[in-house]
């Protein structure tokens, strides 16, 4: 009897010990996974910085030259150096297509967001939300393919540009369609989260719906809408293959929106595979990747600054 009692006691002690061990084991794993995400992000940043600064440290080019010179003639070998690494054409290509895309799509996104939240909220949930989700899901290569087979010939027929339909215009239209869902969903969320008392107060004063929207709801939702626009811009900056398919990939500043040019992502996508690892061209392409990384982190900080200001205002 006594020995049995001792036995159960020790076994329960054992199982408590087992439980605690189990508890710590899983706790360690869970914390490790949390830490892993930080390490991964820092790791990506670290590798990009190491590779991307090679142009300046190992090849002795200046940051000024990289950002503002349009002389792109790097050597593609690991021993030679001294070519030009000016990426101004690519940078300008990215900025111009993204800005145009944003100009095209923001009014439409905003109008769609207002329609699906304020005017027909029922259809908004049942019709627009699923439709926009599908928009998000269509792979970017498919957008690029449609741009290549439909939009580019269409522009060629409509305007008869000298270089064919490959153009800044085609790239910005493809980008505009791609970032439409991002801006629309974030703006719709921002409009929805405006307190309904604002609306009631404005309607109570006898405002029409347009007055309520224009004077009260949209200003109140402005920071959220801005966040959506920045997220859309970030997506447009990082888009590679869809743009590469329609931009024409000519190394020249565009004369107008119907001329072809090139951008950061398309240049990386098409040239990285052919360049000798560690060579001047290769390192310059890595610097372009680093620039993209810096831009996307910068956008995130911008969003944090906006939402931080909002919180202060409400507190």
């Amino acid at each position: 009897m006594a020995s049995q009692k001792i036995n159960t006691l020790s076994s329960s002690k054992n199982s408590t010990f087992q439980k605690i061990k189990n508890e710590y084991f899983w706790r360690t794993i869970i914390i490790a996974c949390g830490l892993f995400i930080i390490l991964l992000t820092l790791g990506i940043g670290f590798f990009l910085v190491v590779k991307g600064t090679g142009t300046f440290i190992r090849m002795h080019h200046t940051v000024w030259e990289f950002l503002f010179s349009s002389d792109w003639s790097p050597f593609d070998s690991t021993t030679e150096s001294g070519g030009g690494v000016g990426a101004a054409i690519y940078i300008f290509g990215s900025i111009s297509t993204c800005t145009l895309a944003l100009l095209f799509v923001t009014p439409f996104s905003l109008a769609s967001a207002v329609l699906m939240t304020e005017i027909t909220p029922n259809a908004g949930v049942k019709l627009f939300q699923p439709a926009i989700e599908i928009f998000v899901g269509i792979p970017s290569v498919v957008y690029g393919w449609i741009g290549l087979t439909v939009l580019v010939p269409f522009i060629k027929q409509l305007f008869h540009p000298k270089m064919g339909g490959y153009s800044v215009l085609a790239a910005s239209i493809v980008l505009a369609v791609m970032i439409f869902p991002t801006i629309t969903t974030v703006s719709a969320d921002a409009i929805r989260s405006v307190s309904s008392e604002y609306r009631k107060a404005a309607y109570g004063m006898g405002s029409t719906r347009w007055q309520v929207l224009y004077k009260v709801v949209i200003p109140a939702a402005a920071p959220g809408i801005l966040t959506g626009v920045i997220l859309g811009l970030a997506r447009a900056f990082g888009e590679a293959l869809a743009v590469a398919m329609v931009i024409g990939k000519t190394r020249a500043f565009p004369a107008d929106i119907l001329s072809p040019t090139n951008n950061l992502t398309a240049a990386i996508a098409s040239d990285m595979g052919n360049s000798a690892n560690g060579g001047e061209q290769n390192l310059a392409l890595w610097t372009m990747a680093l620039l993209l990384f810096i831009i996307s982190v910068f956008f995130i900080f911008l969003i944090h600054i906006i939402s931080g200001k909002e919180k202060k205002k409400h507190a």
Partner: protein
Amino acid sequence: MHNSAMKKRIAKAKAVDSVMTKLFYLIGSFFLVFLLVLAGYIIVKGILGFYPELLTFSSKGIGNQFFNTIYLVFLSLVISVPLGVAAGIYMAEYSRDGKFLTFLRICIESLSSLPSIVVGLFGYLVFILLTGAKWNLMAGALAVSILSLPLITTTTEDAIRSLPKGFKEGSMALGATKWRTISKVLLPACLPRIATGVILAAGRGFGEAAALLYTAGQSTIINWSNWDVTSSTCPLNPFRPGETLSLHIWAMRTEGSLNPNAPAIANFSAAVLVIMVLAFSLLARITARRISKKSGGQI
């Protein structure tokens, strides 16, 4: 006098209101129609160019690419789901509010907004150049899992945080330990929501191309009678080059002169991708609806 001026202002405000309302309807319905036309166009055009060899596992068909796409997404989920769910649990249950958690959130946001080509380059550097390997499916899967990690993490965190407090309190009150509470009570309760996130992540993985350009490679040679996993032509070997459907479209754009079927192949691949995306977002919707029904009855 004063009265009539006021009436004019009111009439003007009403007129502007009705014009703007119509404008909103016009723009909104334009985009709705545009989307339907676009999706319809892609699917119809893909099907119109159909010829039977498209379904074969040869250079004329897309069977190999289709298999690679599914296999790659499967591999990437095997990696990203445990990691993402664990990290989500950490954020919801183990971490304390403060600077560290804020930093972790900024890291996740940065990860989720990283251009996929940059992630692809990182993958190329770490999984291909540093290991000395050739293009392979595993490198592609790792790159795609970096892209889907943020989505799975934030979905898990949100799902756990949105559970009613009673779940945790009840379990703790019965003497369960923290991990037991998480694994036996909290996780099962938010399984459907996590599943929705995973389905969405898978849907994005199918369409990913830029991240795979320099990791999974743009060629594929599969010998379907070879089942020796270590051989480079075995379909199940994760360390062989594996072009996916979306990369195939990218490759087909320049191959018009070499392969007369290139446009038909690209159109059909695009249609298959869009149908897969539609199916997956439908699946995610159904899962999400089930949750709201279930929790509607329980709570």
